[in-house]
């Protein structure tokens, strides 16, 4: 009887019932779509951070160099004796990225020992600059030094793009000089999961094993390998030594933050005169809640260091992604809430008016002995059914809306801008871009709008709540009816 009565009554006023359900559906659907959109934006932000930062890295530690340090590398280009004139030359200089000071590797262990730190790994990022060409023959010893460096750089790396032509005193080579540079990251092969390689994905070959601390093996970025025609198994010359290429990696998410070459840390330290030193420390906290605490611990242990967390980075992100997230959080939320409130109000009004038109019907039932709460139960039941239908429709509308957003959304860009610790101009080591606050790194992400099971449950729950609320209003109205209302002459 209970369900039969509900079904028949809703069928009788099916247009109104559908309108009520639809109102709830639109309100709920909007909540679903906006929440999915906000979720998608959040995911996009995570993608940005991970590609710039490496998955799993919570904090990075670097130290900015004082201005007196660093400086242009000297290549000793001066061919002292006549015998060298006319000969080809090739020089390489490997330096830490300008603006970065190296830290003692012991600091890594110091940080790893702090409470709240799950893992700490050191890395060393270097730039290798190569100059090659031919010494020109000098016409006379007093020839005017007109250095003719038509520095055509065969730019071989995707990140370090500057080609600087070197100037040296006195007799300069007059033949064209080739200058190229590429970035080298020294990786602690004994620790996996954290470090410069963590923002990359293996595409062919393999990465280092934990025993290859001093083995002359290298992992290359796929784009660098392609440009310079390296494959797995080929040999690359670094600082006069041959390294075997064992694997190629790509960056995780369309970012520009990979090195060209990765070699074991020990070797990187050796070739750059940085034995026992690192210039970046990657830290993983035991839990997200500990990050702030760990940051302050590190700062007190290393007062001169720059400590950057993911949230610091997030604050620097600008671009269309940031606007999208603001849109989602402010406008979107208010719109959804307003629509939901309106839907609830409509449902309540329609339910109460429906009850008002059944005064004689309910009065008769009460005259037959139906208890008030039984009559209220019928009204509530009708309302809840409308809520359920509204919830299902709302999920469909919401999912469709979310899919439309994902389909039609443009590719969003996120740019990490400058921080206050801007060093002298030069290259930022890949993967540490934000900490250095040097040239802006831009990441492009495609927006998704994920609809999780919890979101669906929330949607149905909201619609049900609307149904129950409307049922309560209607039920209150019905409970006030008296059996004598059955005898009313005028309806």
């Amino acid at each position, binding site marked *: *009887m209970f369900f*039969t*009565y509900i079904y*028949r*009554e809703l*069928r*009788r006023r099916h247009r109104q019932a559908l309108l009520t359900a639809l109102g709830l559906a639109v309100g709920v659907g909007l909540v679903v779509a906006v929440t999915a959109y906000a979720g998608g934006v959040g995911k996009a932000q995570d993608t940005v951070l991970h590609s710039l930062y490496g998955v799993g890295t919570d904090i990075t530690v670097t130290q900015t160099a004082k201005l007196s340090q660093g400086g242009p590398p000297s290549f000793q280009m001066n061919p002292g004796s006549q015998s060298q004139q006319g000969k080809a030359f090739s020089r390489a200089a490997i330096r830490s990225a300008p603006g970065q000071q190296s830290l003692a590797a012991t600091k890594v262990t110091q940080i790893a020992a702090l409470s709240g730190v799950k893992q700490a790994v050191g890395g060393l990022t270097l730039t290798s600059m190569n100059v090659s060409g031919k010494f020109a023959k000098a016409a006379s010893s007093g020839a005017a030094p007109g250095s003719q460096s038509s520095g055509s750089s065969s730019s071989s790396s995707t990140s370090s793009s500057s080609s600087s032509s070197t100037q040296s005193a006195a007799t300069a080579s007059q033949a064209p000089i080739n200058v190229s540079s590429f970035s080298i990251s020294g990786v602690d092969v004994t620790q996996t999961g954290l470090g410069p390689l963590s923002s990359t994905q293996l595409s062919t070959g393999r990465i280092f094993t934990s025993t290859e601390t001093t083995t002359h093996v290298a992992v290359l970025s796929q784009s660098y390998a392609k440009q310079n025609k390296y494959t797995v198994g080929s040999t690359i010359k670094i600082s006069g030594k041959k390294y075997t290429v064992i694997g190629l990696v790509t960056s995780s998410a369309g970012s520009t933050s990979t090195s060209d070459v990765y070699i074991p840390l020990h070797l990187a330290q050796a070739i750059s005169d940085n034995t026992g030193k690192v210039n970046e420390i990657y830290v993983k906290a035991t839990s997200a809640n500990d990050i702030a605490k760990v940051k302050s611990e590190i700062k007190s242990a290393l007062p001169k260091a720059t400590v950057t967390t993911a949230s610091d980075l997030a604050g620097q992100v600008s671009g269309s992604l940031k606007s999208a997230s603001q849109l989602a959080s402010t406008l979107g939320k208010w719109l959804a809430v307003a629509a939901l409130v309106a839907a609830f109000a409509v449902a309540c009004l329609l339910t109460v008016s429906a009850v008002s038109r059944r005064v*004689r*019907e309910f009065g*008769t*039932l*009460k*005259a*037959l*002995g*139906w*208890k008030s709460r*039984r009559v209220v139960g019928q009204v509530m039941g009708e309302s809840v059914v409308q809520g359920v239908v509204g919830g299902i429709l709302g999920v469909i509308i919401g999912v469709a809306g979310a899919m439309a957003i994902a389909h039609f959304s443009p590719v969003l860009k996120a740019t990490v801008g400058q921080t206050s610790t801007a060093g002298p101009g030069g290259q930022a080591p890949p993967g540490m871009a934000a900490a250095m606050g040097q040239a802006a790194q831009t990441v492009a992400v495609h927006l998704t709008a994920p609809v999780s099971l919890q979101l669906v449950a929330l949607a149905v729950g909201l619609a049900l709540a609307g149904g129950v609320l409307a049922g309560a209003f209607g039920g209150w109205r019905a409970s006030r009816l*008296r*059996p*004598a209302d*059955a*005898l009313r*002459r005028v309806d």
Partner: protein
Amino acid sequence: MLYELTGVTKRYSRGRKTVDALAGIDLTIGEGDFVAIQGSTGSGKTTLLQMLGAMDRPSTGEAMYDGRDLAKMGESDLSELRSHSYGFIFQAFNLIPTLTAQENVETALVPWHVGGDERRRRAREALDGVGLADRARHIPSEMSGGEQQRAAIARALVREPRVILADEPTGNLDERTRDEIIGLLEQLWRERGQTLIVVTHDTWVASRASRRIWLDAGKLAPEGSGRPGPVAEPETSAREADETVTERMAEEPALV
């Protein structure tokens, strides 16, 4: 005596105006009586029926039903009475428009919490008893006025109540159907020995009763006994007299 009403009044307030729908009723009704309550519009006959049917409580006075004072009973006790001891028949049939005839009869059994099968069986039996078995699965809009009232009677009777209260049961029916319905009610009354209280303005209907009560402005007129003769019933107002004479001349009811 099944009913004993003493000094029963009912006062309604509408804003600053108060209306005495019943202005002091003393009345007894015996078990098995067939009582007709007559009176013009506004005489209070519907209000009296509400009192007798435990749908409302008197403002003052005593209303004893089976030894219990209805005036002092709480709402849930009154509801209990309504669901066990009384059956109602209304002028507009008051069937639930979305339910079939059988389901409508079943609604009377819902407060009894009988199982679904038992409920359906009893409902079908009741419909049989009023000759409506073939319309069991029709909704009210598919039935004639007479059929709807039959269904309503079945609903009133399915619980085998002690008292049947009817408010203008033939008011919305044509003459021939009226005769059928009153005939049916009379027959059932004779078969089952229930107390039948009918409010009506129709003199012919009233004439079928064993007792006639007149209400005027909330007060009872002194009763005539049994079926009145052609000029025997006491007229309480000129208008009432006109009405009755007009009806009489038109219908020529069979007396005795």
